[in-house]
């Protein structure tokens, strides 16, 4: 996924990769992640969310950067909306890949 897949990458493919990251890097149980949809909220403190905190988001960002070959600049930008749901996150990734 990381290096060659820019052309023709779909949101579904990005979502699937994000789900894989949730299991492999954020240590979610595969059965939990199987239930997750693009509407699933991410941040802790939001009803029904996956409960991710700042450390989770850092792990997620770094992994996304490497796997998709993009840069997420958390220092100068407010990424609260970006990281709100898997939908917003996957759209952001597509945007950065120059696909969406």
């Amino acid at each position, binding site marked *: 996924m*990381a290096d060659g897949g820019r052309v023709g990458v779909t949101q579904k493919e990005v979502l699937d990769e994000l789900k894989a990251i949730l299991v492999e*890097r*954020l*240590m*979610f*149980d595969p059965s*939990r992640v199987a239930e997750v949809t693009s509407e699933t909220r991410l941040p802790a403190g939001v009803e029904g969310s996956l*409960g991710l905190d700042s*450390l*989770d988001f*850092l*792990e997620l960002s*770094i*992994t996304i950067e*490497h*796997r998709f070959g993009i840069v997420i600049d958390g220092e100068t930008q407010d990424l609260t909306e970006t990281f709100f749901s898997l939908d917003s996150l996957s759209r952001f990734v597509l945007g950065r890949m120059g696909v969406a």
Partner: protein
Amino acid sequence: MNEQRRVVITGMGTVNASSAGGTDAVLSSLALRRSAIRTVRTFATDGCPSRLGAEVEELALTTRLHPDVGRRLPRVCQLTVVACRLAVEDSRIEGGPQLGVVVGTEYGDIRSTVDFVEGFIRYRHSGLSPMTFPNVLMSSMAGAAAIAIGAKAPSVTVNQATVAGDLAVARAAALVAGGRATAVVAGGVDELCEALYRRLAQMGALSPMRGMGVEGCHPFAPDHNGPVLGEGATFLVLEDLAYARARGATIRAEVLGAAWGNIPTAPHTARRSRADAHSPVLRLLDHSGIAPRALARCYGSGNGDPEVDDWERALLARDLPDDSCRPGLWPPVSLAPLFGQHAGLGALRVAAGALDVTQGTGPVLVHGIARGGCRTAILVGSPV
């Protein structure tokens, strides 16, 4: 000198290879006297000079941990959090600025350290995991436990070979006696992981040491030939007697005193001939006014490592000659054959002593000595 409060034990929690739960679980695993040492199952031991270990049943851990909590916790932190929670529930103590934690550990989170390093070695920068790195610090278990039980007084980790759990209980007793906390959840944790096991076996630190004899844990026996590793977490709630009484806690036993010291010797060595010029055992007995003859039982840290066993025997023989003690005090009781060597043993020994005194025995001495000379002594008795 600072006013010293009296310290009592009001709760226990354990996840070990034999049992998991509160005081009842500790009691049943001690009473059963059944060794949890068997051939290691969770990783292959091919090509390894040792094969035995005492492993925690995975369900004992996973059924006690909510997935949301357990997700981010590496296994050694999971063991710590579960055991500390069990102890706190057993004690019915509340969290807050008066509750502390002291975690003793010999190896900390080796697994996470290896994972973190391997991530980089295999995948370079893309393999670095910011989530894993905090677990490389040995203080991570105490940190996780403090969050889980709301402990806002000191949360301390003590690192020591063999007697880490004993040292943790002794330090916790000092924190309570000296007023830094009203109660402290204290004990020890270590986990068995392949990287650690293989290296220790390779370095000749496990039975059969020097490849001699049959592999097994036989403290103080003529055929002792090394320790067998175990894993688990055991924690006790140590509490200021006045507070325990005021809240109607169940008081299991009193920590009549706790002392520790050092016998200068080269790191990793245990020399039977090295005497202790400032024995913590003698200091303790002197301070508490308890005569050696009053001691009902002695638990020791001897775990089958021949040099440690022999040194412990020699030290105790000097401090407490046969004619000054009740018969049957020697050799000290070792819990290593039941649970395997790990930092949880120290708290298990103190727990065993506490359970002895609730059955009406006289005071119990929990003794410890490690390679390198760290020596501990904890006296457990019936609260008056």
